[in-house]
């Protein structure tokens, strides 16, 4: 099998390359003003070529195919599940986040087994569904259920998979190395397009048949053996299975270096060498922290937690995990959210004066910076405190309070200027300014420059409600 020629790096791809393949009629059917604008958005991955209706017509068939090829990611995007609850995995364009942006945040699948008592099984599924945390105005969640067959019994597996499928719409991963057991499970949810886990050097033929017959994506498992991983991928592709995922094995503690190196080599081969056999989503299994070792539950959960975070950093496109503990999942969900944000997008919010509730001339005036995370955190805390107040958002170039003070982006001069520009003098009749606790060192100088009394607020905005209760209106 010939390897794909190394494609033009995503950074080098110019809108002109794309534009030349578009119909160039400026028909506006895509909603853009002209084809060039659409081409630019395509290059930035803000739209897909399917959004150009003329391109889908027969006469543009060849151009469509070429564009598809031109824009194809180094790591194939595969879909697990169907309809609204389908999740796309992989689809990576670059090796490093700063080269462009990462796409399709790593879904986390939580495992259940076919030997769990029904009550426990359904309880776990429910917990996964309800797992939610609000982070800077967005909800972060767990994403999938992985059903493992520990019974190795087809009918037991089948009935468990059925129960899980009835209980949740979340996409499923079916885990067993026994093709007979797998078939029993797949049959139960063949409309749901589960991810099959996994084909190995011993069962690949039967697993490939199942993947073909039921049109499911298929994981290849070759622990610590990338040559075998490639061989299996080559065989599967020849077999006609196109949607693959790759698991080079997750070794935690002993073998961790191999895990990190294997994931890195696979991803680099796909992104830098154009290796089509390795250009598939990577499956990480932090759940292996739980096997083969006697240790307290917290120790194993701890290992699973940090291993997951390392795999999110190093190229895992799907994670299979055991622990449902909030302290295990929260840092990973937040880290995933963070690393999949678009580094090309500004991280600041608009500076200036914001009003919360219905402030009047006696309402407090607070100050913060325009770093998005700082702002959203402060905003959420003000809202939950129910206070009517003004908030002056200082332009620090999108840097947090602490860093902008260290970097002299938030100074007394800057604060004084912001107070003046906000025009807050006309809105309130008092002259009290509440500054962040982390900006305490600016208080004296800010008083000198503004003529306002400065009150040093809490170091963390979660203390705003309590602070206002204690200190507002000012006692003197």
């Amino acid at each position, binding site marked *: 099998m010939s390897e794909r020629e190394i494609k033009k790096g995503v950074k080098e791809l110019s809108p002109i390359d794309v534009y030349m393949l578009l119909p160039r009629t400026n028909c506006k059917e895509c909603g853009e003003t002209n084809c060039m604008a659409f081409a630019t958005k395509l290059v930035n991955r803000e739209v897909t070529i399917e959004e150009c209706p003329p391109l889908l017509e027969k006469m543009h068939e060849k151009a469509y195919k070429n564009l598809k090829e031109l824009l194809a990611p180094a790591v194939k995007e595969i879909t697990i599940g169907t309809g609204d609850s389908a999740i796309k995995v992989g689809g990576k364009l670059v090796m490093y986040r700063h080269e462009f942006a990462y796409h399709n945040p790593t879904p986390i699948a939580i495992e259940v087994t076919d030997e769990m008592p029904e009550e426990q099984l359904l309880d776990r599924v429910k917990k996964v569904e309800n797992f939610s945390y609000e982070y800077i105005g967005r909800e972060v969640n767990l994403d999938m259920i992985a059903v493992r067959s520990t019974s190795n019994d087809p009918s037991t597996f089948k009935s468990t998979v059925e129960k899980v499928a009835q209980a949740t719409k979340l996409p499923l991963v079916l885990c067993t190395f026994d093709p007979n057991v797998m078939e029993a499970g797949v049959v139960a949810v063949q409309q749901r397009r589960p991810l099959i886990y996994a084909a190995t050097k011993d069962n690949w033929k039967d697993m490939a048949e199942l993947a073909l017959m039921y049109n499911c994506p298929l994981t290849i498992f070759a622990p610590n053996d990338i040559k075998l991983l490639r061989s299996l991928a080559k065989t599967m592709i020849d077999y006609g299975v196109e949607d693959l995922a790759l698991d080079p094995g997750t070794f935690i503690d002993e073998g961790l*270096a191999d895990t990190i190196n294997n994931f890195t080599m696979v991803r680099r081969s796909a992104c830098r060498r154009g290796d089509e056999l390795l250009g598939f989503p990577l499956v990480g299994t932090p759940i292996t922290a739980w096997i083969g070792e006697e240790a307290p539950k917290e120790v194993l959960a701890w290992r699973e937690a940090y291993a997951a975070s*390392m795999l999110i950093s190093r190229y895992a496109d799907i994670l299979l995990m055991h622990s449902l503990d909030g302290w295990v999942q929260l840092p990973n969900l937040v880290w995933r959210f963070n690393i999949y944000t678009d580094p090309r997008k500004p991280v600041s919010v608009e500076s200036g004066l914001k009003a919360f509730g219905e402030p009047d001339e006696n309402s407090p005036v607070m100050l913060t910076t325009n770093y998005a995370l700082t702002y959203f955190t402060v905003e959420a805390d003000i809202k939950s405190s129910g206070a009517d107040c003004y908030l002056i958002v200082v332009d620090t170039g999108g840097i947090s309070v602490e860093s902008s003070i260290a970097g002299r982006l938030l100074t007394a001069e800057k604060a004084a200027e912001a107070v003046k520009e906000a025009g807050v003098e006309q809105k309130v009749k008092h002259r009290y300014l509440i500054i962040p606790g982390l900006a305490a060192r600016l208080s004296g100088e800010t008083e000198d420059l503004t003529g306002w009394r400065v009150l040093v607020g809490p170091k963390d905005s979660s203390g705003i409600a309590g602070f206002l209760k204690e200190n507002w209106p000012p006692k003197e």
Partner: protein
Amino acid sequence: MGAKEEKRADLKFDPKLLDFLTDSEEIELEDVEIELGDLELWFQPGVVSAPPRVVAPPAKLKPTTLLEADFIPPIEKYPGRITEVKLGATKGEGGSRGKSILIGGATSPAFYTFESPRPNPPIISLDVFDTEVPLPKAIRTHVQEVMEDPAAWAKLAVEKYGADMVTIHLVSTDPLIKDTSPLDASKTVEQVLQAVDVPIIVGGCGDPKKDASLFKKVAEVTEGERVVLSSVTLDMAEAGVLNDVAKAAKDHGHIVLAFTALELNQARELNRRLYEFLPKDRVLMDLTTAALGYGLEYSFTIFERARLAALMGDPELQHPVLSGTTNAWAAREAWMKMGPEWEPRELRGPIWETVTALSLLLAGVDLFMMMHPAAVRTVKDVTKQLMNRGTAQPKKIADWVTAKI
């Protein structure tokens, strides 16, 4: 179909054809022209029953044995290398440390062991403060009894928590806190140097002028110890005091930590100013560590970019890098009381610091400033594992799917 064409299409298939095809992955017909609608195939019944797809355009047979593929590790070559920096000085080297520690020297990105083994492992320096500072409860519990004695605190950090180094933060020198004089503060440094024999980092208060006078004094009294002065900034340059500090570091044999806020051009500029006084192996960089959930991705990306640029040959970024990982505790999720589903906080806090550290470990950080003992231990364990490639035992996880948990 005329008689002539009929004769032309009268192909004879070898009866052994099927046997030949059994092991084929793919059949390619050479020198065959097929005009659709004009083709008729004749098979003699009983002689051969090749399926029609044998002749239909490119048909594939499913492989029956595993197809072999090779794997060549995708090794790249880098023109650049990270400078090796020696921290601390032993008696023989002009100081009084039990041993000195080398960091840096990398010739490929962090833990791309398949390209080249990492010459020096990343290390950890534990934070010690010279005055009471607000600490999250989860951390305070571990240092409560030594919080008023920096020397005892340093000793605890080394002996109990396995610190490779200790950072003595002279926070009390802040004009807005106690305004401790450089002379008094440097006495604290001397006490710490006597209490432990690991290399040390000396932290200032963040006020450029005060730090400059502090560092000059500290540099003098710790002559030859190769301490790290944390940190020098462009603000010092603006205040006209950077050169004095750089010169003091040079004259008394120390290292400076060049701090910039998530901006590589500033990092380069600051380093250029330092090169006027100091050799490259006397400079470390701190590119800013934001907490997980509060901008860690910017830190991750800036450290990753700096390391790749350095390896690609950017001479102004080829320095070992430091992360102030204790900043992880600025995240409210690390210390705040939340609902019961997020408890216990005693684990949530240290895992927050751990994940912050490990993310940056993979981005290239060489030296971590940390606090929580569990986070410190984990980073040490992980580092030890990461330095040791070739230990994976496939058998151990081969059947994880059926494992009872």
